[in-house]
């Protein structure tokens, strides 16, 4: 570069501080606006529903408001980080890989990437911790998997994802159809799940297995793996179908399920789980009875007046019958010491002392509301610790993967990274954004979803609203109408949460980019969101009407799904299945699970939200495939007219 031209360049660059500030401000405003467009629906919906429709106060309003703002800022940075850093990075490597290296190397790379991505996923470490929450006498195999064999479990998930990524990339090299991979896997999975469903020991493991499938397709892995696939397919193939590059995500969410179920079956037949014949571990003392309560642990009663003390007789009655005078509203529960953590949307106290205190039922509700309005900030959240932990998780999720990719590029492929500064900034943005996003979720969106989710049953039954202590009468005297309304609200909850999912947004953008705008992001997102909404509404229906058996709600859709997959075109099979793998993300899962728990707690015989999640991932596949069939019909009409007129 000559001296003169350098001068010319630098002359153009000089902007001054004001200029730089204005460019940066406009940049940030535009990007934040984009993210706001994807999350406003779910936030506005949750707030309005709680305040206007259910007529209940929002507890800890200030914490939630701050959390929501942080979520938007975090998403802005995270998505920008994906766009600048992670996705170009993945695509670059993907495009170099097929030319510069041999097949064994590519297989090794893909396998390590899959395993690494699993270990980096923050949710997988929760899995390791989750074991203590399980009661060994109720679910012995699940308990053993999470405690005795937790190492094997995580390894299984990792190997499952590793094989999935490898197969996904090999698929591009050999031009295999995704259908011939999916249909046998899904049939096998359905068979094993059904078998497990009817066995009391295997049954509790199903939820874990399917959750592992959802856990591995997080907001970092998905865009990275997508970009990699796109890169590979830029180089390989005759380019006959527009969907090349997709499908890895699908495999990465199916294989871990298979791996975990396989592990469970192995231990089931080896009879070496908790309490079984060949068990080698230590049996636990029978756990002390636990008082089940839906009340929050944050209520503190001040020094109790004499009238509000339990008497000796009441205590003896409690020991014998397990109940206290005044029913569930006659006392408050608080916890002392021990550790508290969030698992699957449930708050779990471990090794805590449970303290029951008598309470004045009449004045309580008012007192709490006054207390809440006085303290809109949740005193139990230690912001600094939360910041540190979410930053740690974000770094764990992003940095090791990037380091691995960077080393591969530099050492194995021997290529230099173009636009290294852009990618570097992108990675920093992604870490920063993901940390903020996680923080915002814990402060704002998840608590809000918890409150609302557990309040939804108020439409058809009498419940104690979240954070309050007095029961509220059902909103609709007719329970059928109330349940119907709960389903409608569940639909919109799923719809809104899906639109806000970062991984789905990234998928939508990738689809739009690779098809040069033929397949719009908005079309994909809307279709998927409606599918998730329908799935969740069906799940709520199943819980609200216990006579509907989950097995019979799940099996026909899955069979229908296999049929649809069989008759659909390859590109829509790719889009549909990939988007289903992506929907179970950090926004949807807590909201849906808390709603499932809320409804489950108020209806006897229903325990968890597993059915809802399973239905929520069938829904989008069916809707996307259906839209695909409609679209292809109009397309084929045109082709037909071409062939018919051939002779003239």
């Amino acid at each position: 570069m000559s001296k003169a031209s350098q001068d010319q360049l630098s002359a153009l660059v000089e902007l001054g501080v004001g200029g730089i500030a204005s460019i940066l401000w406009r940049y940030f405003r535009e990007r934040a606006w984009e993210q706001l467009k994807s999350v406003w629906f779910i936030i506005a919906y949750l707030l309005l529903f709680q305040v206007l429709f259910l007529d209940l106060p929002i507890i800890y309003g200030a914490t939630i408001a701050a959390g929501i703002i942080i979520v938007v800022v975090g998403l802005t940075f995270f998505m920008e980080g994906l766009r600048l850093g992670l996705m170009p990075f993945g695509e670059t490597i993907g495009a170099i890989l097929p030319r510069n290296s041999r097949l064994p190397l590519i297989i090794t790379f893909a396998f390590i990437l899959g395993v690494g991505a699993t270990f980096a996923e923050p949710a997988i470490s929760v899995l390791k911790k989750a074991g203590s929450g399980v009661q060994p006498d109720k679910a012995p195999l699940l308990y053993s998997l999470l405690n005795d064999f937790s190492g094997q479990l995580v390894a299984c998930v990792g190997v499952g994802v590793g094989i999935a990524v490898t197969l996904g990339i090999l698929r591009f090299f050999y031009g295999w159809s995704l259908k011939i991979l999916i249909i046998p896997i899904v049939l096998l999975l359905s068979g094993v799940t059904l078998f497990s469903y009817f066995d009391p020991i295997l049954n509790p493991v199903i939820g874990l297995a399917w959750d592992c499938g959802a856990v591995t397709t997080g907001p970092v892995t998905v865009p990275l793996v997508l970009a990699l696939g796109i890169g590979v397919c830029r180089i390989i193939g005759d380019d006959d179908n527009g969907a090349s590059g997709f499908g890895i995500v699908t495999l990465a969410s199916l294989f871990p399920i298979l791996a975990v179920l396989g592990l469970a079956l192995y231990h089931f037949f080896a009879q070496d789980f908790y309490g079984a014949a060949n068990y080698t571990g230590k049996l636990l003392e029978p756990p002390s009875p636990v008082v089940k309560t839906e009340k929050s642990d944050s209520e503190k009663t001040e020094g109790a007046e004499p009238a509000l003390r339990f008497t000796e007789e009441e205590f003896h009655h409690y020991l014998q019958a397990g109940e206290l005078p005044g029913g569930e509203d006659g006392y408050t529960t608080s916890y002392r010491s021990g550790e508290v953590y969030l698992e699957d949307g449930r708050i779990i106290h471990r090794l805590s002392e449970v303290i029951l205190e008598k309470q004045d039922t009449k004045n309580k509700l008012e007192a709490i509301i006054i207390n809440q309005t006085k303290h809109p900030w949740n005193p139990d959240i230690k912001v600094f610790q939360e910041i540190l932990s979410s930053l740690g998780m974000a770094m764990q999720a992003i940095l090791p993967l990037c380091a691995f990719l960077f080393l591969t590029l530099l050492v194995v492929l021997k290529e230099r990274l173009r636009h290294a500064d852009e990618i570097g900034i992108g990675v920093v943005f992604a870490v920063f954004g993901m940390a903020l996003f996680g923080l915002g979720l814990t402060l704002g969106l998840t608590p809000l979803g918890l409150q609302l989710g557990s309040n939804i049953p108020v439409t058809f039954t009498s419940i104690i609203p979240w954070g309050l202590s007095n029961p509220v009468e059902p909103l609709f005297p007719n329970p059928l109408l109330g349940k119907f309304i709960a389903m409608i609200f569940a639909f919109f909850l799923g719809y809104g949460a899906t639109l806000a999912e970062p991984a789905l947004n990234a998928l939508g953008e990738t689809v739009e980019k690779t098809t040069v705008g033929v397949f719009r992001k908005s079309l994909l997102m809307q279709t998927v969101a409606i599918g998730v909404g329908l799935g969740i509404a069906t799940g709520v229906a199943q819980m609200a009407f216990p006579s509907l058996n989950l097995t019979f709600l799940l099996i026909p859709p899955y069979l229908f799904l296999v049929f649809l997959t069989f008759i659909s075109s390859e590109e829509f099979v790719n889009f549909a299945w990939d988007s289903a793998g992506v929907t179970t993300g950090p926004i949807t899962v807590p909201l849906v699970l808390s709603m499932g728990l809320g409804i489950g707690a108020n209806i006897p015989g229903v325990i968890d939200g597993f059915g809802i999640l399973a239905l929520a991932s069938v829904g989008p596949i069916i809707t996307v495939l259906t839209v695909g069939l409609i679209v292809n019909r109009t397309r084929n009409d045109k082709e037909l007219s071409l062939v018919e007129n051939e002779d003239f």
Partner: protein
Amino acid sequence: MKTFSSHSDYSLVTAILPRQSTHRVLEEVLASGASHALTINARGTLMKERWYQSFLPTLSPEQEIIRFLVHNSEADHLMEQIVMVGKLRLYGAGSIYATPCCELTCADDYPLWRTGNYTFESVSFDIRFKKDLVALVQIAQKGEADVIARAAIKAGAQGPTISYIRGIGLRDRLGILRITKKPEKELIVVVVDKYDLEAVFEAMARAGQVGLPGRGFLYQVPLSKGLTNLASVFNPEKHSASVQQIIRAIDEMQGDTHWRANQLLIHDPKAVEFKRDTRGIIKDSVVFNVLCHRKDTEILLDNALSFGVPGASVSNWRCAESQAKQTKGGLRLNREFGNISMILSEEVIAPLQKSLKAAICKHEMKETCFFSYDAPIAKTFQLSTSISTRS
């Protein structure tokens, strides 16, 4: 030291085909001895005739743009073959046109189309290519292409084709602040009859507001011949022939397009005169293109920018070859070419080429090629009246 050779009498033949027929066309053309073709994905535009259609999930038609640099003597045969294989005479089957290159310079290792290798013999197919066609090319911000394409269709053009490109210019002079600008742009190509040119040009310029700063570029390229048959209305089966088909049939019968001068029949004061907004119009510039391996584009771009070129657009093309490497599964391994395209005044080109050639030799790039064609009228936002050249 690389050697470069200059050629004249070459044309750029561009075919825009729907996805379904590209594969077949490429196979046949490559089998007949064509050395290679460059392809890029694109989408067409369909208007929805009825209000309820906007609620149906419809996709824009998937298309592919295929380009060949061909010697003039064989361009006719190539175009005839593509018309035959792609059935381009049918409504909605695609379009093809040839752009005469005013200059073509390529490195000696570039796989240029050599005369004599291509063996397709025309079977007196009697294809009447139109001679009075002009291509309108517009570079717009991402997301704005649909509005512009619709405006073009309303003004009488058929089937605008949209592809994604990367816009280079101010962005790359911002240093690291460049991350604040998205480089993605959309490139809209419309082929129109000369008769419709004024109206379509004006409609596109207005819809894209190209006269304002940062709103892109619009230019017209004269074509030597072509045939356009791209669908532009969704669901035409209500009538056995669409209005476009009928107009085309009458055009063919009349042999010209003058019969369309409806101002003589209907007195509509608004329709009589087009007031062309002459601000920002640049005359007699040249579109200068650089073809190179995709990984070399950045270096050549930097070179061009530091030379003083105000802006450029980059598109990435797959190279379809008759002898491509294959994977074990029998799939083709594609090579990728980058095309850097710049709109310049003619006198800049020679020194720019010299500078680029130096960079090519220095970095030992393989298979590079320069070619340019006329753009007699272009429109963009302009502060000064001339394209900035090195003073």
